[in-house]
């Protein structure tokens, strides 16, 4: 009899082992098969052709460096100097970078013995070590140069346009203009633009030195020039971050305020009528299922782009989520406390206030604060769609495809913002309901 039992058990155990072995091999095999399918469905082999590594290089180098353009207009002979070639970064009249010298013959020293000379009559001389001196003459729309027939791959030349890329900088020549780009590390003009008197001054000079601008004190002037910096737009960026956080705050809190009473209607314990309960639950499922994306699209039609639309989209979606979570929390409250309060003769409203709310508040607050952090991220994305906040600035900066240092700046700010909200919600949770550990 024991032998019979044993063989039975053994059989069962072997079956179990077999099943486990099957699962042990089966699940990884299914995953591997799926990944193979994805490999082709997402066209990963074709990705190599689509990927643009030049873009990656531009992105990587531009995000931490800036370039100064020295441009000669070949029609008027006028020379201009501008950071990133932007009007906002233009050097004022009479000022120029110190690596440019000469008047008749303009000598641009790119460093590493790379020298470009702008000669009169739209002639240009380019000296590059290890390469014969390049001479170019611009006439009307065409260029004549002494470049040899077979060129190294860092020079591209036609009779309309010549481009030279060196390790020290880039030179492009066309009939209309001659441009030299000199690269430097760092985010130029981050503090002050060139037209501000505080540009190039040390911290000490600004704080303790003589007045640089006679009409206002140094600190006031410096702060206002920094705040209104046209290149980096610190004021707009601060507003955008404020808008993003505002969207998350309004959306989360509004959703919690609306969801709480509705959650009572959806909880079995507090809402005896099946029909109301089911209707509320379906409502929660519906607003959650429609999803923030569709709500954003629909609301943007009614309210136009902006932070309010984003806040409302978060509010509506999260009302559903909160309603579900809250009603689950309400179902799990301990009846004893409510009975205790009822035994003192408390009316229904008082029973809720003193019997139910104290039990669910910690759960509710923890969820709300967690969503506040998570919604800061959602608000960044929704902002990119509906047109508000830092998400919009980031998308615009990426779409223009040239201000990569600004993109890098925004990314850093977004990460800092989310980490701050994460820390802040954790801190608030600790203050309000005590630390978990």
């Amino acid at each position: 009899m024991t032998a019979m039992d044993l063989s039975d058990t053994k059989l069962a155990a072997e079956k179990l082992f077999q099943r486990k072995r099957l699962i042990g091999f089966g699940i990884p095999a299914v995953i591997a098969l799926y990944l193979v399918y994805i490999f082709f469905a997402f066209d990963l082999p074709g990705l190599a052709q689509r990927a643009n590594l030049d873009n990656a290089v531009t992105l990587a180098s531009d995000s931490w460096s800036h370039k100064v353009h020295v441009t000669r207009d070949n029609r008027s002979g006028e020379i201009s100097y501008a950071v990133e070639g932007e009007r906002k970064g233009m050097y004022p009249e009479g000022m120029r970078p110190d690596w440019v010298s000469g008047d008749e013959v303009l000598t641009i020293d790119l460093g590493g013995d790379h020298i470009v000379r702008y000669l009169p009559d739209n002639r240009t001389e380019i000296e590059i070590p290890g390469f014969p001196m390049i001479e170019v003459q611009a006439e009307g729309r065409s260029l004549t140069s002494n470049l040899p027939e077979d060129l190294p791959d860092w020079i591209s030349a036609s009779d309309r346009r010549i481009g030279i890329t060196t390790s020290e900088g880039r030179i492009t020549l066309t009939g209309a203009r001659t441009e030299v780009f000199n690269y430097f590390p760092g985010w130029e003009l981050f503090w002050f633009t060139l037209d501000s008197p505080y540009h190039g001054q040390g911290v000490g000079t600004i704080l303790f030195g003589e007045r640089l601008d006679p009409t206002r004190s140094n600190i006031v002037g410096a702060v206002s020039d920094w705040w209104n910096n046209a290149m980096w737009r610190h004021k707009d960026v601060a507003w955008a971050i404020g808008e993003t956080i505002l969207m998350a705050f309004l959306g989360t809190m509004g959703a919690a305020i609306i969801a709480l009473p509705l959650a009572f209607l959806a909880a079995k314990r507090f809402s005896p009528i099946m029909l109301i309960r089911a209707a509320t639950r379906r409502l929660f499922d519906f607003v959650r299922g429609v999803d923030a994306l569709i709500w954003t699209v629909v609301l943007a039609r009614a309210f136009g782009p902006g932070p309010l639309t984003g806040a409302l989209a978060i509010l509506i979606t999260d009302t559903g989520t909160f309603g579900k979570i809250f009603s689950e929390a309400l179902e799990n409250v301990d009846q004893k406390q409510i009975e205790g309060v009822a035994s003192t003769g408390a009316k229904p409203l008082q029973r809720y206030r003193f019997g139910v709310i104290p039990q669910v508040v910690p759960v509710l607050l923890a969820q709300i604060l967690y969503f506040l952090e998570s919604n800061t991220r959602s608000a960044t994305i929704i902002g990119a769609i509906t047109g508000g906040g830092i998400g919009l600035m980031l998308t615009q900066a990426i779409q223009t495809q040239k201000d990569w240092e600004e993109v890098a700046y925004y990314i850093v700010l977004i990460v800092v913002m989310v980490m701050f909200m994460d820390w802040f919600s954790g801190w608030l949770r600790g203050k309000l309901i005590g630390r978990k550990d």
Partner: protein
Amino acid sequence: MADISLNTAPQSVDSLQSSYMAQVQRRRLYGGLTLLIFVVLMVSGFNIADERNAGGFWEGLHNIGDYPADVLSEAWAKRADLPALIAKYFPALVETINIAAVSTLLGTIGGVLLSLLGTRGLAKWPRLIPLFRRISDIMRAVPEIVIALVLIFVLGGGPVPAMIAIAIHTAGALGKMFSEVAENTDIKPVEGLASTGATWSQRMLLGVLPQVAPNYVSYTLLRFEINIRASAILGFVGAGGIGYELRNAMAWGPGRFDEAGAIFILLFGTIVFFDQVSSRYRNRLTEGQGQ
């Protein structure tokens, strides 16, 4: 009875009562102040948001139904085409789901590694715990859209940028949740395995993962739900899938509302479907009723 007890210790009860009332009043004051600050924040926040919005809240409120009504009426008028349109956009939907599934898969693998390497008592290199925790914090903090937009620029549009972006965020988010679970594991099986000379990966695979599997799977399912939404949204900013089709359909405007309607239906149905399926399995897992 009450009189007697009151008479015996009138002072102490009085002082108790007054100190209690004082306490209650102070708490009410603090509570009232907090509430006041909160209300002020909400109202002023609403006003700022309203002011900076292109259209005002009150003017827009009665238009809120216009767009859905337009879409629905047009979709209803062309309801005969609807099945064809749904079939047309189904591949895009599959792409969106695939993005979510792959990124959840990759993110879960990353999250498991990050959590095990970042949990006290389990980590392979205990000195590097803070490093792995910071890595998972940063991965969690970067919104998907940031990575997706940058990768779209480098890799071109399509599902891959969205997949990578969501996978990175998922790894970070799951890394944190997983490590909270892993902290509460029973260390004895791990020690037992260690005494037999098991390597770190064997200890984790055989000692820890069986303990945490139900919770891990439950969190992963929840993430999958979230990631379907995320991949639909990323499509809208150019990463392929149903979101991309929705943006195109919307750009055409009236006359093509039936297409937008079909996409709305698909997206809504998908989200609700996966919500229900995953919450069903999650309930089974967390209640220990898994068969």
